[in-house]
């Protein structure tokens, strides 16, 4: 957990009045700021966070680096009354850099988190300019995270913001996260993204960009198909129950009736789902069909659709087969949450 001074740059331009994020872009953004602040300050008591806006009359620092959430909330409240104008990203970043330079505790590393919800115009759209700025940040060892949402999300390869982050990045300290409108909360997506991953102690390489990930792959990186940062207790519980179950099944297979294996199956199901999580992609439709058939008929499930469990298939006794069928049905339930990411 690095010790950091962070400056959060809010987008308070006219585009923030849009309602495509609940309840409005600005509110979703404030919520996200709250989450980020809590995450940073909780991860290390020395961390401090400052807040500034970049639209309106011009970039303005609302709160200098502080550990007090109250100040930040009050500042957000006043900012909500000042929505308007257009963003000026290069100036805002320069101001943020200056604010970080004058932080009280010089031992803190520097980070800027910018929320961009309006389209890039003027000097911000000039890619060369932005890249020069990014290199300056990299030279001064300032990490940059950009959270693009609303109109700030850019299509295709032209993404100026992505190039910006890539140029400012040194050792994976800078990230670009793009959050499309949808049922999920801006702050929830942020929590599970690379931006806040470092605070939870999870190596940032494991975090996929929720937008760009292939179907099924985002959760494939996590053990048990559950994001440890979203729900660490669940992940821990699953791991513990898998260990218990492994010990139990060794004894249960030989002597005990399937019923006891059944109880343990829901817990064991998720660990089994972990073995070939990335093969869930291949299996999807067919395997689901097979499972559905098996469930409705109560027959042994044909295991050929699940490559990772070959070892167990050959040696299965009838009891184990039934247990497997139940696990498969559990796996189907675990498999379904992987599908929604495909839709966005």
């Amino acid at each position, binding site marked *: 957990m690095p010790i950091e001074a962070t400056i959060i740059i809010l987008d308070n331009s006219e585009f923030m009045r849009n309602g495509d994020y609940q309840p409005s872009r600005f509110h979703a953004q404030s919520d996200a700021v709250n989450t980020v602040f809590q995450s940073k300050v909780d991860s290390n008591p020395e961390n401090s966070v400052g807040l500034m806006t970049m639209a309106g009359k011009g970039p303005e620092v609302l709160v200098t680096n502080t550990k007090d959430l109250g100040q930040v909330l009050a500042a957000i409240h006043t900012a909500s009354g000042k929505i308007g104008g257009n963003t000026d990203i290069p100036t805002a970043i320069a101001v943020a850099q200056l604010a970080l330079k*004058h932080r009280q505790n010089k*031992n803190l590393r520097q980070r800027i988190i910018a929320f961009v919800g309006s389209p890039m115009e003027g000097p911000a759209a000039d890619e060369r300019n932005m890249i020069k700025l990014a290199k300056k940040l*990299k*030279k*001064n*060892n300032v990490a940059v995270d950009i959270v693009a949402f609303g109109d700030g999300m850019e299509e295709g390869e032209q993404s100026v913001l992505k190039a910006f982050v890539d140029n400012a990045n040194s*050792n994976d300290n800078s990230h670009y996260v793009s959050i499309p409108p949808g049922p999920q909360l801006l702050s929830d997506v942020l929590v599970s993204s690379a931006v806040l991953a470092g605070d939870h102690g999870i190596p940032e390489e494991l975090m996929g960009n929720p937008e760009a990930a292939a179907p099924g792959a985002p959760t494939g990186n996590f053990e048990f198909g559950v994001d440890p940062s979203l729900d660490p207790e669940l992940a821990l519980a699953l791991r513990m129950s898998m260990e218990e179950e492994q010990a139990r099944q060794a004894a249960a297979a030989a002597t005990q009736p399937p019923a006891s294996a059944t109880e343990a199956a829901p817990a064991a199901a998720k660990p089994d789902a972990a073995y070939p999580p990335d093969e869930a992609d291949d299996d999807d439709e067919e395997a689901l069909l097979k499972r559905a058939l098996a469930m409705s008929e109560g027959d042994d499930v044909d295991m050929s659709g699940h490559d990772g469990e070959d070892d167990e298939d050959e040696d299965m006794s009838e009891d184990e087969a039934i247990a497997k069928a139940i696990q498969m049905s559990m796996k189907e339930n675990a498999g379904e949450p992987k599908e929604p990411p495909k839709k966005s």
Partner: protein
Amino acid sequence: MADDKIESLLAYMENQTTCLNVAGDSPNALKNLPRTKQRVKDSSLPLLSNDDPQLLLNVHFNQAVRLRKLIIHTAEAHISQGPALVKLFVNRPTIDFEEAENEGEPQAVQVIELTQEQVQSGEPISLRFAMQFQKVSTLQIFVQSNFEDGDVTRIDALDLLGTPTLGGGARDLSGLHKEEDS
């Protein structure tokens, strides 16, 4: 004036020492820099600059020291990438590249134009006797350019010579050793 033994001050360097604009790994590639000047044919871990020739080295000491001499060494094979123009700042840990570039003396305590011979041989360069050099808590070494005016500056070894103001560290504190002639 007492004839203090001039020694390498790298022994008093703290972990907070960093370097900006370093290529590759984290700024603490500096820690791997050979602690004393060594005649190496091929340095294992040189300090390389990233993208442009400037380097800003921030050396923290665990006590105020008196700085007398500086050694910067680049291996002969890469001598054209060695630092040419070096500015020394004292006790300014938050200085950034723009300031370092724009300031000359007197804000920079000393501006040194190195010659290739000095850097290649790693000879100690005596520093001016300035008041600021008598009370150095942090030293900023700003390398502005290299000999070939290229994009990469390379430093293979670095050493700072002088005397500590509080005495020689653990040796004095223990009190169990015999008085040595230091």
